[in-house]
């Protein structure tokens, strides 16, 4: 639109007869309109708040919340502050989002590859899965999962045993977990160290291969380190073996670690719904790699496995990753539907807080800023990825 050069036109700053002058007038009018609208809304809000005797401000965050939260990783009791209650909500949102993303990606890749299978039966089943899940609203699916979890599953006194000591009932899913001891801390440290070793080794090997053209042997040492160091740490910490095992009592299942039926319903609903979209992304990503690439790779003598690993997947990933991240964000945003089935995520805790103290404006600003922060962080990470993955064309 030929912006260059226009700035050189001399004349009055706001003139109707030059293009840049008209642009400035338009911007001034727009600014005034935005400002007027903002001031109008601000004034209305102030008047309304005064009339309802609501004290605006974030001071309420330090007051005790007074309501209980059913579950969460963040230790919380009703005497804690609103701020802490919101933190517990953010913790629950992130927990269900992280589990959901892992499960949805896993299912989505399987179904997406299945839709391209040469086996017609597999293809039809995967297509049916995608079509059904994508064409029914998520909230309908969540209600159905939730009612299924709380109505169809057996009472807690007679749970289904999915695996030894893994129980599923109306109270949720209970499974054994190791009792925390020093040895587990050492094991975690060993795992981190082992992964670092493996990464450093593969980096060195890659550099060497690029310099000499030969692939160094001994890469399995890295894997060995990643596997052996945690075990070494566990043994060094006294090899703790105590497990917290759930047992069936006369009334319910006690002990072990449990997740509530709300969490289960939300997790399964979000993961299956999103996996249908991920399957489509995976499918179109694989289809986006031109067949000539496969043929060229085969002509070079690469094995079928090598063709997939070295030629098809890296190129498909470049197409898949951007929409995949936006599906991850969608899943995180959709986890706010937790409010409909009573899982205490950020939005439902904010909802409770609003009903209790009427600080709607502040609570909604808080929710929105949490989601916008998550979005912004993902967008920044994606920017870095895109710069690294962008095709360098000659």
């Amino acid at each position, binding site marked *: 639109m030929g912006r260059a050069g226009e700035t050189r036109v001399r004349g009055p700053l706001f003139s109707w007869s030059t293009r840049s002058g008209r642009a400035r007038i338009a911007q001034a009018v727009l600014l005034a309109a935005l400002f007027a609208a903002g001031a109008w809304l601000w004034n209305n809000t102030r008047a309304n708040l005064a009339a309802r005797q609501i004290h605006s401000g974030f001071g309420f965050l330090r007051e005790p919340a007074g309501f209980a939260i059913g579950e969460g990783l963040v230790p919380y009791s009703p005497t804690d502050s609103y701020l802490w209650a919101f933190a517990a909500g953010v913790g629950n949102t992130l927990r269900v989002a992280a589990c959901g993303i892992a499960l949805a990606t896993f299912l989505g890749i399987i179904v997406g590859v299945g839709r391209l299978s040469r*086996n017609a039966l597999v293809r039809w089943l995967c297509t049916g899965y995608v*079509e059904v899940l994508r064409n029914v609203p998520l909230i309908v699916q969540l209600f*159905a999962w939730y009612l299924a979890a709380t109505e169809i599953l057996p009472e807690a006194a007679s749970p289904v045993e999915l695996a030894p000591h893994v129980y599923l009932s109306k109270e949720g899913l209970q499974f054994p977990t190791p009792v925390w001891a020093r040895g587990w801390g050492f094991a975690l440290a060993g795992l981190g160290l082992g992964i670092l070793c493996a990464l450093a080794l593969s980096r060195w090997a890659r550099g060497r291969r690029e310099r000499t053209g030969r692939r160094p042997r001994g890469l399995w040492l890295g894997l060995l380190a990643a596997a052996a160091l945690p075990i070494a740490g566990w043994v060094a910490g006294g090899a703790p073996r105590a497990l917290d095992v759930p047992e069936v009592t006369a009334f319910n299942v006690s002990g072990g670690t449990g997740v509530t039926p709300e969490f289960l319903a939300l997790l399964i609903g979000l993961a299956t719904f999103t996996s249908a979209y991920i399957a489509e992304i995976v499918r179109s990503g694989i289809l986006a790699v031109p067949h000539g690439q496969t043929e060229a790779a085969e002509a070079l003598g690469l094995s079928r496995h090598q063709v997939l690993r070295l030629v098809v997947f890296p190129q498909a990933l470049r197409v898949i990753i951007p929409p995949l991240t936006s599906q991850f964000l969608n899943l995180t945003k959709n986890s706010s539907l937790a409010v409909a089935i009573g899982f205490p995520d950020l939005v439902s805790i904010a909802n409770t807080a609003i009903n209790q103290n009427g600080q709607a404006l502040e609570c909604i600003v808080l929710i929105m800023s949490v989601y916008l922060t998550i979005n912004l962080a993902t967008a920044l990470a994606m920017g870095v990825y895109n710069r690294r993955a962008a095709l360098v064309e000659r």
Partner: protein
Amino acid sequence: MPLAAEGATPAPDSPRAPPRCARGPGAWLRANLFANVPSAVATLLLAAALVRVLPAAVRWLVTDAVYSPDYAACRALDYRAACWGFVAQKYRLILFGRYPYADQWRPLAATLLVVVALLVTAHPRSWRRWLWPAWVVILAVFLLLMGGGAFGLSRVEPGLWGGLPLTVLLTLVGMAASIPIGIVLAVGRRSHLPLARAASALYIEMVRGVPLITVLFVASFVFPLLLPMGLRLDVLTRVVLGITFFQAAYMAEVVRGGLQALPRGQYEAAISVGLTWWQAQRKVILPQALTLVIPSFVNSLLSTFMDTSLVTVVSMYDLTGALRLALGDPQWRHFFLEGYLFIAAVYFTSCLAMSRYSAWLEHRLGSWARRPEALRA
């Protein structure tokens, strides 16, 4: 060489039929179900599973099910088969919510009117100038039928509207109102005015970054605070506004996609024949860009249709909310699965129809969009 041994080299012009083993159902089975050992194993395992599951599913869903609204018969089934009696008993509550029972022909007529109008609109042959005023009339008749208060129809408060007509209303009005806002935002985002660009981008990214539920919360909790003291909007209007503002941000991105697909030359040519910026947008750029994104509009309509189900969270009784109302009856509560299957079928058929239509449209308009000069930047 076997060919030489057979002696007869086919004439170069006579096309040879494919070998018999590459034709017919046998070849199809071999290629698609028994191509290799893993494929054959997968086929056999899946077929075995289907043989076990499918008859049981058909028995549960169809043959053993109870269809009459007979509670005793449903109880006697003990969940071994579906009780469609729940749907038979409650279908008017599920479809029309709390709308006065005697007047429920009105939401039925209104919904049918809109569905027929949508079917007519779906065909590109009806894309004429009269379509816009026709839709204004249709929406007015829809609202008149629902709300009454004239022509001898009794007045029905919007608070009582519910079920499928409410879903249709929220979808259509949200969609229709968000298109103009979306166009303004999209053009603003590509404007050469930095302030317009920044304001549009900020709005679009902020709205797209938050879940629809928070926007509905804003509509139900914050809108009353933002308006002047005397002015009160009922909850339906506020929710429609919330959906509109939310959908507008997505619509803006759809329109922007169309604007970006148009070659710059279109704009430059329009300016060089002496059109002003506004004329170029209105007469050259937008008509082409909007035609390009019609299939995406249909997809937006589909996602708005599904998104409207969230209004049940702010206590409105759309199709999903009305089902929950029906399930509030403790006697029938246990047959929730049948109820959810029923509304899932309603959503599924509508959405499948829309997405198939969008694909068909894309194919049909594709012949226009694929013209070599149309999409080259």
